[in-house]
């Protein structure tokens, strides 16, 4: 008889019973729908214990790596510690603040203990008074400090504080990491397409550097879109990375004003389609404002990219 722990309580699972059946039978509410391993409504995470491969079939590699599985097709073989999602809060402090443009601030943080994360995931930054906002990680775990790119939101409380008042050594808390938009090794020759707008560049830079560090050998194509050239940032660093990395290219894209600056002009999705009309066999990462992410996700899919190879993170702005 295997034991399932969930939400601080223990439940027994009968032989042959699925995790979902065992939990439902004992009155635990777990979202579910098809109960056939298809719809993924019943996704849970095994923090401890091993789930059979069949329970992770069809899931994105990033979810598999974090222990997520489909409870409706997971027949219990041994004890499991289960959780819906989440993480822990950690003490940290600001160690660097650098304006990259008028509206983008590079924030560097240190934590009391090393944060375990993947480049491209996001953390929730909490100020001492409890104000909290989520930002993607542009750094790699080996960098020592955590790097966030913060856009100054109109009347934004956290971004306003970081831009105008915060100083090095100020204390903060961090929650997370979370998110499944990150690089997973194992297909080193697969071409990668990364595209985003605004500070969507933060996770994409992290993912590119992570892929390069893991010796990804296939093409890595990064596109960064902005309305005007002033909205682009890290151009020098990315151009330098492209010069020293044979399989990496960086294409800045603007809607207007980019003539003569070595910048592509046009809608981001059209520029990508012009460069890469067929995307069968590619893996894609898309980050930035929800409108652009929605359009790009659909365009990449229609250009032949498999749905499970598309990793997206839409930045939803907090209500003011």
């Amino acid at each position, binding site marked *: 008889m295997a034991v399932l722990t969930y939400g601080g309580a223990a439940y027994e699972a009968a032989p042959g019973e699925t995790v979902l059946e065992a939990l439902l039978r004992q009155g635990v509410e777990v979202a579910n729908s098809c*109960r056939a391993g*298809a719809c993924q409504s019943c996704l849970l995470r095994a923090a401890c214990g091993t789930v059979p491969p069949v329970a992770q079939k069809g899931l994105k590699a990033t979810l598999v790596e974090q222990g997520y599985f489909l409870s409706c097709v997971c027949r219990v073989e041994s004890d499991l510690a289960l959780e819906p999602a989440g993480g822990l809060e950690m003490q940290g402090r600001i160690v660097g603040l650098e304006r990259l443009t008028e509206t983008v601030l590079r924030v560097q943080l240190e934590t009391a203990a090393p944060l375990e994360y993947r480049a491209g995931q996001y953390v929730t930054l909490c100020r001492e008074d409890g104000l909290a906002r989520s930002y993607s990680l542009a750094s790699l775990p080996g960098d020592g400090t955590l790097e966030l790119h913060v856009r100054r939101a109109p009347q934004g409380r956290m971004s306003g504080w970081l831009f105008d008042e915060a100083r090095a050594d100020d204390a903060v808390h961090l929650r997370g990491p979370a998110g499944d938009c990150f690089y997973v090794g194992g297909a080193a020759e697969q071409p990668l397409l990364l595209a985003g707008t605004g500070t969507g560049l933060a996770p994409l830079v992290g993912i590119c550097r992570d892929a390069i560090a893991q010796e990804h050998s296939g093409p890595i194509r990064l596109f960064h879109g902005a309305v005007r050239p002033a909205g682009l940032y890290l151009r020098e660093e990315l151009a330098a990375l492209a010069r020293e990395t044979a399989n990496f290219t960086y294409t800045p894209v603007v809607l207007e004003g980019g003539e003569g600056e070595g910048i592509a002009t046009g809608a981001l999705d059209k520029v990508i389609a012009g460069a890469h009309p067929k995307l069968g066999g590619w893996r894609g990462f898309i980050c930035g404002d929800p409108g652009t992410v929605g359009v790009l*996700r659909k365009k990449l899919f229609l250009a032949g990219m498999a*749905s499970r190879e598309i990793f997206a993170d839409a930045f939803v702005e907090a209500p003011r």
Partner: protein
Amino acid sequence: MSSLYEQLGGQPAVDAAVDIFYRKVLSDDRISDFFEGVDMDRQIGKQKAFLTMAFGGPHNYTGQDMRNGHAHLVARGLNDSHFDAVAENLSATLQELGVTQDLIDQVMAIAGSTRNDVLGR
């Protein structure tokens, strides 16, 4: 005699079909408007559940689920012509995957049996 679901290849067959099917549906001007602005990951999950059912596989769908799930689309004008367009895309997907006509006919019969529920009649 193995089941229709087994003959089609089970869950791997659903996985192989779902992208091809959804790509056809999204590219079809007759019906693509109904999918404007929907969350793609969630939609693909739903399409998998639907294909699993149409392939004769395990499912939990009831006629009432079909009605509830499509009521907002019926309110926007979903009718027989749209149902036919989706069915056409499903059939074309199976042909593309090299499924025999006999099995395609069986899948289309299951899919067709949902017509009145989907259209809220």
